[in-house]
């Protein structure tokens, strides 16, 4: 059976890389005694796959992965067992059975939302946001495996708006899962640039992923909508 998991990552654990996270998850599944299936072949590996890697240093309230089990186990049992054995800072918030034939999470997730919080208040933040939104073209050389490629940052942004405290916080909704996607800190950097406070704001910021979405039936929904029945 195929089980979709939704989980949060918070606290110090945000500093682990995606590879670190995969290892931790595999070991957690083993400790929890969940009957994970293994791939065939010379070097079998546990069958689990992830939505969108979380950048190092970013916290999240909704990440997704799915695992294939060899035998049946109640999805709530899976969730509880994982939570008993997970390292501090990672919590599974939901588990649901999904169709074995559903496409991979990686291919479904098209949008990622972030809340970005500055360490210190910046009165010009709101105008920086407005200026960003007014642009038609914001060129950016995106690093890739074969050198950089020039993209338009403006195209990567679905929406951008001030948060509760408009001098410290803003919300951004980004394209995800295709070649036009960019890291949230790149957008944050540009916004800060547009405030004109560039250079003076080495303040540091915290980035929190608030959600990942797929586009289904003409609307943005979370991958939990893949749940059967």
């Amino acid at each position, binding site marked *: 059976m195929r089980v979709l998991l939704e989980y949060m990552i918070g*606290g*110090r*654990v945000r*500093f*682990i*890389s995606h*590879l*670190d*996270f995969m*290892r*931790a998850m*595999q*070991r*957690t*599944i*083993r*400790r929890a005694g969940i009957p994970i299936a*293994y791939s065939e072949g010379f*070097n*079998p590996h546990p069958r689990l796959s992830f939505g969108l890697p979380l950048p*190092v*240093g970013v916290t999240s309230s909704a990440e997704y992965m799915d695992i294939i089990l060899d035998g049946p186990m109640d999805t709530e049992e899976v969730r509880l067992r994982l939570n008993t*054995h*997970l*390292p*501090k*800072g990672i919590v599974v918030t939901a588990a649901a059975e999904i169709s074995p034939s559903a496409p991979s999470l990686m291919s479904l997730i098209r949008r990622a939302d972030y809340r970005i919080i500055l*360490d210190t208040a910046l009165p010009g933040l709101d105008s920086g946001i407005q200026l960003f939104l007014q642009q038609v073209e914001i060129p950016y050389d995106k690093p890739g495996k074969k050198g950089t490629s020039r993209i338009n940052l403006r195209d990567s942004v679905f929406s951008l708006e001030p948060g509760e405290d408009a001098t410290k916080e803003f919300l951004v909704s980004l394209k995800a899962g295709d070649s036009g996607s960019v890291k949230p800190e790149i957008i944050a950097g540009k916004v800060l640039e547009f405030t004109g406070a560039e250079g003076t704001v080495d303040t*540091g910021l915290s980035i929190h992923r608030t959600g990942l979405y797929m586009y289904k039936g003409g609307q943005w929904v979370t991958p939990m909508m893949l749940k059967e029945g």
Partner: protein
Amino acid sequence: MNKGQIDKIIGRVSKPVRYMGNEYNMVEKNPASVQIRFAFAFPDVYEIGMSHLGMKILYHLLNEREDTYCERVFAPWPDMEARMREADLPLFALETRDPVSEFDFVGFTLQYELSYTNVLNMLDLARIPLLARDRTLDDPFVIAGGPCAYNCEPLADFLDLVALGEGEELIEDLLDAYREWKADGGDRDAFLLKAAQIPGIYVPKFYDVEYMDNGQVKAVKPNRAGIPDRVQKRVVKDLDRVYFPDKIIVPFMDIVHDRIMLEIFRGCTKGCRFCQAGMIYRPVRERSLETLLDLADKLIKNTGYEEMSLSSLSTGDYSRLEDLVRDLMARHSSERVSLSLPSLRLDSFAKEYIEQVQRVKKTGLTFAPEAGTQRLRDVINKGITREDLRRSLTDAFGSGWSNVKLYFMIGLPTETDEDLKGIADLANMAIDCYYGIEKDKREKGLKITVSTSSFVPKPFTPFQWEPQDTIDRLREKQHMLQKLLKLKHVEYNWHDPETSFLEAVLARGDRRIGQVLFTAWQNGARFDSWAEYFSLDRWIDAFAGCGLDPAFYAHRKRSRDEVLPWDHIDTGVTKAFLWNEYMKALNEETTPDCRLGCTGCGVRRLGEGLC
């Protein structure tokens, strides 16, 4: 200090996970509820330190004590160090992030000489006075253990205490004494005097070193009453009764040895004459099969690790290895736990084990003949023949391996060009073994990796009197091997002779080397075991600045009657035995494995029934 600042800093350095803590099985305690705070310090980066078995044992052992909270600290990588210094952030422990200067003890494990400058750097980052004599009641006691502690004279001025031998029992005695001292009140010396009464504890400041005009040590003598003339190492008698953790920290990071290490025995009976571990960890004591199977069950369950290795100096010598491997595989292969057998010596290698291990996952195979000819293997007492190696390689290739590594040392005592040619000869033999297997029965893609390290004479070994080859001479030998090993399917790797030279100086250094360490550190030396940070020039300058000649330590042949800087330390093995082994080496005479009969090394003095 604002602890929130730490997250900001580690968010900007490479691999922040090194400084993060919070791994599964990390111990959490309320520091206010304990009497003793112990910082276990590893003077290298996280992924190296976390791979060390001794740290895992002592960390969990100390945390079993209700009165103690043991936390971990590693050497910050240079980018992190720069950020810490810039932000004025003192060295902190991973668990609570409290500054280690607030702890009662900072305990360094000394696994290799080239980590010494990191010890100084960590003390400095912690804002603990570098010199033991400058520390006050507000400072922690700085203690060191591990193999390099046996001759830690180069670090003597920086250490309050040194723990010799196995730590499990010794550390309990030490912490008990500390609590008594704390209750009684008293100055630092009062505690050190009390500690010096504990077998295995060496307090360097209670010993004076006199030198002769020629620079050799004249004598090392206690400078106050009640201090033993010699300090004898501690050994644990029964490995089935001594503590071994049934859960260990599971790092997020891909550390160097990222697996369960099941320690099957301590000590080694082989008697290889270059090998310090083989001498200082005597005698051999095994864990029983039952204890090991039980530990393996618990460790697998409590960690979720997918790989386990059997750890010892010579795994092939474990008396019930076949049963152990078979039982471990029977119990855990369905859970897809793979078993790797490191330091497997070919003399005890059996085809069956290869196949057992292969059942789950194929891991690399390494053989260590150490020297190219039988003559030189006799000199070093490495009891492996060409025929042993031929059989093992044939077995390996016949069982589906096509990738093997052969390890050798160059610069061994009495070595000639013939011995170097012998290395190439064995590489050729390996090729022949491979092609001796029928084509459809062997794996494709033969690759033989020959690696040479440079011999470093170590204290407490039969070669402690020997000069090391000069850097130039080692380079010549490497060039010769480069030519000899230009063979199809063979890759040759060699070790940088400059770091081996420094290792030789520090390994047999005396207390005067402390100044050199200090100077080199001040001039920027740290992470000397990392090629990108090592600079021989910096060390040469430091020696010159201190008026010392490194060749005196590395390239000088010592005489039988010379007082060695470490003679006041007793590992159990006598100097007379070592000298006798040295003479036999020069005569190309071997000494049999002491399981076949006692060879009189002296370690029996350490306790009845030990071996």
